[in-house]
């Protein structure tokens, strides 16, 4: 039976997807601002963050209204609560994009200390993770969501490598410390975006299957039951 509640749920879903695209674009453009040394682009990202923040407020309000008015249960309840969580994560993705943009403006004031090799790869992978997490959410695809969880380890690995390479470079060339530290922070920002994409993927699995895969809780519970 068609429910008019389904139209409201679709509205909420579409709003979240649009916000997600904005956040994904913000991360991509902030990274470009760094790699292309385009501080103007970086400034646009910083200004544009307010729109993402307003979306977060709208989605929160709509989600709370739907809970109050429709008393959803089962999959509908999981859907709305996961939307509210993903909403918060996407807003933080936007904040991380702002952090990257601010660092880009700072770094662009000096000549580059070395060509960017690992960071662009990292940025592209992270951007893809956010997009794939959004796609998995739109299609309620737990299989696609699982694939994103596996990519998070790759990003952690790149982040470690970037840290070690920059550390070595800063020790060899002390004049590069300022830029080096800024780039370490950018790498950390990208790693945080990957974590947020992973959170979204975990929420998609919970939404689709009702199984909570956060913090390896299932394995821990199974272990406790065996003891």
């Amino acid at each position, binding site marked *: *039976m*068609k*429910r*008019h*509640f389904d139209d409201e749920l679709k509205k909420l879903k579409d709003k979240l997807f649009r916000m997600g695209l904005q956040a994904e674009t913000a991360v991509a453009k902030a990274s470009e601002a760094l790699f292309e040394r385009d501080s103007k682009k970086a400034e646009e990202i910083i200004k544009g963050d307010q729109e993402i923040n307003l979306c977060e407020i709208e989605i929160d309000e709509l989600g*709370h*209204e739907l809970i*109050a*008015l*429709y*008393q959803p249960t089962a999959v509908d309840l999981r859907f709305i609560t996961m939307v509210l969580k993903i909403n918060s994560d996407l807003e933080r993705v936007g904040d991380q994009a702002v952090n990257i943009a601010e660092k880009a403006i700072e770094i662009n004031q000096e000549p580059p200390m070395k060509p960017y090799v690992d960071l662009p790869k990292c940025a592209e992978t992270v951007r893809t993770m956010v997009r794939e997490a959004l796609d998995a959410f739109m299609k309620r695809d737990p299989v696609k969501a699982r694939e994103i969880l596996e990519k998070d380890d790759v990003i952690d690995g790149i982040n470690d490598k970037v840290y070690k390479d920059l550390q070595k470079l800063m020790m060899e060339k002390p004049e590069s410390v300022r830029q080096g530290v800024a780039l370490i922070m950018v790498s950390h920002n990208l790693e945080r975006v990957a974590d947020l994409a992973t959170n979204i993927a975990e929420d998609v699995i919970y939404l689709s299957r009702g199984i909570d895969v956060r913090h390896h809780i299932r394995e821990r519970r199974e272990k406790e039951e065996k003891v």
Partner: protein
Amino acid sequence: MKIKVENLDFYYGDFRALKEISLAIQPNRVTAIIGPSGCGKSTFLRCLNRMNDLIEGVKIQGRIVIDGQDILRSGADLIHLRKKVGMVFQRPNPFPLSIFENVAFGLKLHDRPPSNQIEEIIERSLKAVNLWDELKDLLEESALRLSLEQQQRLCIARLLAVSPEVLLMDEPCSALDPVATLRIEELIHEMKRNYTIVIVTHNMQQAARISDETAYFYLGELVEFGATEQLFTKPSKKETEDYITGRFG
């Protein structure tokens, strides 16, 4: 606005059941009336088509203006009023007649159209309540053989046949199971495109699901009236919040 209620007072003998009620009901919206038992919800509803006139010893003061006409003025045409403002009750009450005759009953009383028009109107009315496909080949069967949900839909179709503008519903789903209730709620949602609906319900969650505006009554007074999403997320009165959160009532 469709209905304007101004300073309405209602008495059962010496007992003041409604105290200075004022509110405006908008056209093509669903307005829900909620509140604990005995707060005056059904009394208020029955004022809107003067069904309370049938009770001995009642007194009413104030104004109820529907489409610019005060229905409480002396000389008001009550038959025309009750055709324009129809009512559905808690327990479905089909007549002990065929499905066809149930829907045709009001038509034959009021308008007396030619028989081919009656058939058209019956088909349209049954379609409006999503009963036509189920019952088109059973129109001569007794209405009492239908399920409770079907009977309630039939009662609504019976109203629609005489082209009302306002539908008053006094706990229309109380006698129905949850799935039947959901189907009636979806029907109400569809019908508001063409009718103004005022519904009394004990079920707050139902009020939240289906109404555009909600009025909270307590001990004969209107405590709060406003947009349903506002009332159920950020009510402006503590008494309203206590009621809808179950801390009271």
